[in-house]
């Protein structure tokens, strides 16, 4: 796409794949513009409710200084925005981490992101897609300046200072929740065990009691251990150099070993010779 193309200057620029190219610049004084690519969100397998297909706009290549609030502000010119979700890579949403307190979320990469913007009205999408290419969106305005660089880092540093009591609260809350879950789990298991005790016809499944020898844990490591034990046992019972053929075999093995080493060394030398590594000076 050539931005200087005068004919299409005031029109929206659409490229293959159904994306519309919008330009975005940091402030009004900026000389260069980023291209961002928007398209209505259309994924067949999408089932989550918070990305309704008809009202969600999918945005590619959002620069790192655009936070969710900035994007909300920028796109509200096409219609009221319901929610904005920024992610490193396109894909289905996950909200497992959202439950954790902010202290325990791992730091996000501060790179270019993709966004899912959910408008309140479906018409806003069309408005966004028909936005002319040569009218850039401006990130940082005088009314709402966006902090970058030094100001941002100082702000980040300030944010990173944790208040002890709040952190303690978060920990306590999580642990309480965790203990509760653990308890429930234990109860459930106990219940299951009880259920197994007698079925309708009066049959009782007999398992090894708790007090007796421990059953082998159901894990990979345990399986391997058992196998190793077996082989070791077998090895111990084996006779070495007992029969003549065994003795002969050992000798053969020894020569084979020497030969192998010899060959390896030869290869090494050949390689070094090829690299002229034997010139002492």
């Amino acid at each position, binding site marked *: *796409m050539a931005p200087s193309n005068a004919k299409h200057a005031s029109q929206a620029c659409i*490229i*293959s*794949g159904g*994306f519309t190219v919008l330009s975005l*610049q*940091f402030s009004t004084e900026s*000389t*260069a513009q*980023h291209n961002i*690519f928007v398209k209505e969100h259309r994924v067949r397998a999408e089932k989550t409710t918070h990305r309704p297909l008809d009202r969600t706009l999918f945005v590619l*290549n959002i620069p*790192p*200084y655009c936070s969710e609030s900035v994007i909300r502000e920028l796109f509200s010119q096409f219609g009221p925005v319901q929610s904005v979700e920024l992610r490193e890579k*396109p894909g289905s949403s996950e909200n497992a981490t959202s439950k954790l307190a902010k*202290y*325990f979320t791992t730091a996000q990469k*501060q*790179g*270019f992101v993709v966004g899912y913007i959910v408008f309140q009205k479906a018409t806003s999408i069309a408005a966004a897609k028909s936005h002319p290419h040569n009218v850039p969106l401006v990130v940082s305005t005088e009314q709402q300046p966006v902090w*970058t*660089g*030094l*100001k941002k*880092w100082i702000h*980040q*540093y300030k944010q*990173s200072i*944790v*208040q*002890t009591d709040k*952190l303690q609260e978060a*920990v306590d809350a*999580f*642990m309480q929740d*965790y203990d509760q879950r*653990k308890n429930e789990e234990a109860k459930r298991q106990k219940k299951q065990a009880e259920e197994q005790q007698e079925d309708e016809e009066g049959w009782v499944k007999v398992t090894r009691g708790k007090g007796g020898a421990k059953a082998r844990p*159901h*894990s*990979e*490591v345990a399986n391997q251990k058992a196998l190793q034990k077996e082989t070791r046992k077998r090895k111990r019972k084996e006779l070495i150099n007992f029969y003549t053929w065994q003795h002969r075999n050992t000798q*053969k093995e020894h*020569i084979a070993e*020497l*030969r192998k*080493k*010899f*060959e390896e*060394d*030869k*290869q*090494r*030398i*050949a*390689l*070094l*010779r090829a690299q002229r590594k*034997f*010139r*002492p000076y």
Partner: protein
Amino acid sequence: MEQSESSHGEEDDGPTIAKRAKPEVVKEMEGILRPVKLSRGELYKPPTAEELNQLKEAESLFHCSLLKMQMEELLKEVALSVRRKQQIDSFVQNVTELLKTVPQTPVVELSDLSWLSGGVKVPFLLVPKAAKGKFHMAPPISVNIIGSYPLGTCTKPGISVDVAVTIPADVLHPKDALNQRYPRKRALYLAGLAHHFNLVPNLGVLSVERYLLCSGAVCVSDDSMLLPLSPGKENSGFTLRLHACPPPGFFKPSRFHPQRNNVRTEWYTGLRSSQTEPPTPHYNSSVLGDMLPAAHLQFLAAVHSQCSAFTDGVALLKVWLRQRQLDQGAGCFSGFLGSMLLAYLLTSHRVSSTMTAYQLLRNSLHFLGMSRVVTPLSADRLLPSLAEFHSVFQVVFVDPSGHLNMCADMTACTYKWVQHEAAQSLQFWDDPTVDGFHALLMTPKPMIRTADHVFQLCGLAQLQASCKKLNLLNELMDHSGNYILTVLPFILSLLQRGLGERVRLLTHSLLPDPEWSVESEAPKHKVQPHLSFGLLLNPEQAVSVLERGPPADSAAEFRQLWGSLSELRRFQDGAITEAVVWEGETSCQKRLVPHQVIKHLLQLHADIPESCVRYVGGMLDSVIKVCSTGEEESLKVVQSYDDLSRKLWRLEGLPLSITSVQGAHSALRYTQVFPPVPVKLDYTFFHRDKTSKCLVPLEDKPCPVYITPIKVICHMEGSGKWPHDRVAIRHIKAAFHISLGELLTQQHHYTCQPSATHLDVWKDGFAFRIQVAYHREPQVLRESLSPEGLLIVRDNEEAQALEMATIHQPFLTSTLHGLQQLHPCFGAVCRLAKRWLGAQLFSDVISEDTADLLVASLFLQPAPFTPPGSPQVGFLRFLHLVSCFDWRNNPLVVNLNGQLTDYTEIKNDFIASRESLPVMFIATPKDKKVSFWTKLSPSVQMLQRVVLVAAESLKVLEHQLMDASQIQDIRVVMRPPLDAYDVLIHLQPRQVPLLNHAVDKPHVTFSRGVLNVGVPKTGQAMPVVDFSPVACYLAELRDAFGDLAVFFCDPYGGTVIAVLWKPKAFHPVPFKTSQMVARRVEVTGEEAHTVPNVEAILEDFRIMGQGLVKSVDLRTERWVV
């Protein structure tokens, strides 16, 4: 196929090998070692007798057959080719023909030089000028090849063929041995030959341009003059050296008894002296040396014919000597001496004539390393006794005739050095963990990289004065006026006495053989550039500032040695003795105590002024200087940490006890480039956070001082109460951070600031970052449930990173801390190495831990050197290691704590899976297979670049250190070449916190919120820890544009960020949703291609670094597609 062949037995062995060799050719192309795959048939076929023998020999004689094959290959490299030999033979033929046509000239007085025309000058310093005798030119009686060439022990490079030209008897007079008459006639004769060669329009292949004063070529004698000829135009790389000799038996050998005088004092000084004439042993041996080459050749040829491996043995010995720079110059251990030594060992039956070259080398090194004195080859009653030799020479090795000491010019120091080298070589020869071949014969050992400290005497004319001061007239006469050689042994013994226990060995460079044009006068002795001395320090004694002497009543000798510096002192043990105290507070000053000693002694006893002594030992210190070179600062950090650690152990009221407290930061192992210094803060410089009492930087002020968080890992006791869930463990750890902080505040009044991942403690002006660890956490991170409900353990990055931080790094820190205790300069070498890496913008390529490991390997496996005894030599070897190690085919094994005894397993594993392993593979006892320190970086390209820059830096640095005439600015190696980069981002110096540590000190300094007065107190507001705008900026840039470009920066005060575009990213690619970072679309026809939006990216560089970036400088236009 293999099976059928195996049944044929012996005669089929050849073709099989040929077939096996074929796939290797393919492998060589790729230049990587691969595991050898042999088919079962080949491995298990019945062995032939010959093969069995070969295998057995290789197994029993060498640790591995590899060494044998390596030596064979080496010998092939140094041996002369048949073609070369033919060339030489025909050339010698031509020269012999030409020599026969030398015309007779009329007899003239010796001092009359008028017959020499055509600008040819006499190669002799005519001091004193007067000499009696007559001279005329005449064709030589005979022309013979002597020396190494006829023996076949001549080796590449620098092939020289020695030819003896016998002066006719009528030119000489039986009394010519007296008063330098013979040497003068010899010089005249050579000048006559040169004259002849230049006059006669000869074959057009000869050119006589230079004289060479050579020592130890065929024989020993300090100045056997010779005339090198080389076939003119075609620079075929060999020289023919013409030696003029007297006819055999012309002088009686007994005249040259070491105790006899052959230079009269009256003639030399012009004064009549009443004393008995002093012996002139060096002059005698120089004349004698000219008479014996033919006899020596005969002797060596006889030995050679008995022992088949003699040639190879001598060749190996020559290579060994040459790598140690022992084989050239005045008083060297030349190849001739090497062959004589071997011949001596053979004739005295110390080695048997059936031995292989390998065994010969080994035995001669053994002999050199173990024996104290070299004994004569023959003992005849009529000849001078050994004691007589020893009374006048420092090293004695008597030739087969019994008259000549072949080591006449060698100083005791040189011989000790040879012994030391031999003993050391034997030591690592037997060590299975060292690549013996490489260390023994392939590694050059220049003095600057061998000796810990080096100093040079410049302006050698000054030594004339020393001659006077030391009263050495007789010796000067003996050396025919060569005052350098005269003074050298005396200076050496003086220094040896003065330095005493401080040095293990003192060595000196051998004066190079001067070579000059036939048309200019013989050079004066003072044109020699300089004389270098190398010190091998004793790390414990070398830094001592006290020289304690005997009690006053028996201290005359001590006082004489030290002069005015010696004074009576009373010591703590009550003794009152003479003593000398040197200056030195910090360890970097103490390391230079030898410099003070040398300066003082030379000034006092040899009249050599301070300005003539150029001491190369601490020149690199300035780049890592804070107040001293960091040892003291590191020690303070370690002490403060030890205190904290003790307090943590004793902390009461924790729900679980602490099982270990370990440091995991380079400052805690003395290797932090600029160790943190305690700071006292100016609170008005900061904004104070109300709720947490933490300081926050202000925008309008310069960036505050950078406070390094010193990482400490605190392992908590295992208990059933620990949850078995990754998220829950993190929460529990956070709870521990809080409670640790509370307890430390309560019981010790430290300022603490907990967070989920760590706890910052502000103590004594240092910030410690404590991280709680639970030993089972990596295990928990690895466990997962398979869909069938089976508990499986899978390694993952998260677990590895955690293990790295909580297990490996603390272990490395404590191990290296131990290494520092053994080798006091380990830390300084690490700091220099890391400073260099930083300055060359490689900090992110080779991590701190990796760099420390590389340096550790220099100390743990120094062969063929000794462990570095000064930061400078360590740094040079670091550069050499980085640039010369064969990273592609060899693992670097760092044997921490000496835990490994055998490397074969590591090597085999390495070869077996080379491709999947990191380019720079470093194995340690805890990590034999993965090399986790270098897993992420460097990449192939970056390593190549590091290797290149290291090699260049080494070259420049060695040049500067050894050559006083170069520009003396060692910071040159710390300034990176910036022209290779595409974009340079210049930063505002005021926002670069470590600006003061920059390689070139900044002109302006900024206030960084630090008070210079007062001691830091504990229990105040938490300072700004670990805040560096540069680091934040770099992290943001890498996050955003990591796919498009690579960013480099010097973390120690660099004010420029260099950007290199990744060429791959600039190819236009089709539109793809997942690869759209900072790209724009170009539509050509139907297709849409994307390219990086460079203008916008450059704009982003400015936007993202607002307040920090000064300017963005474009260097190339490469993105223009």
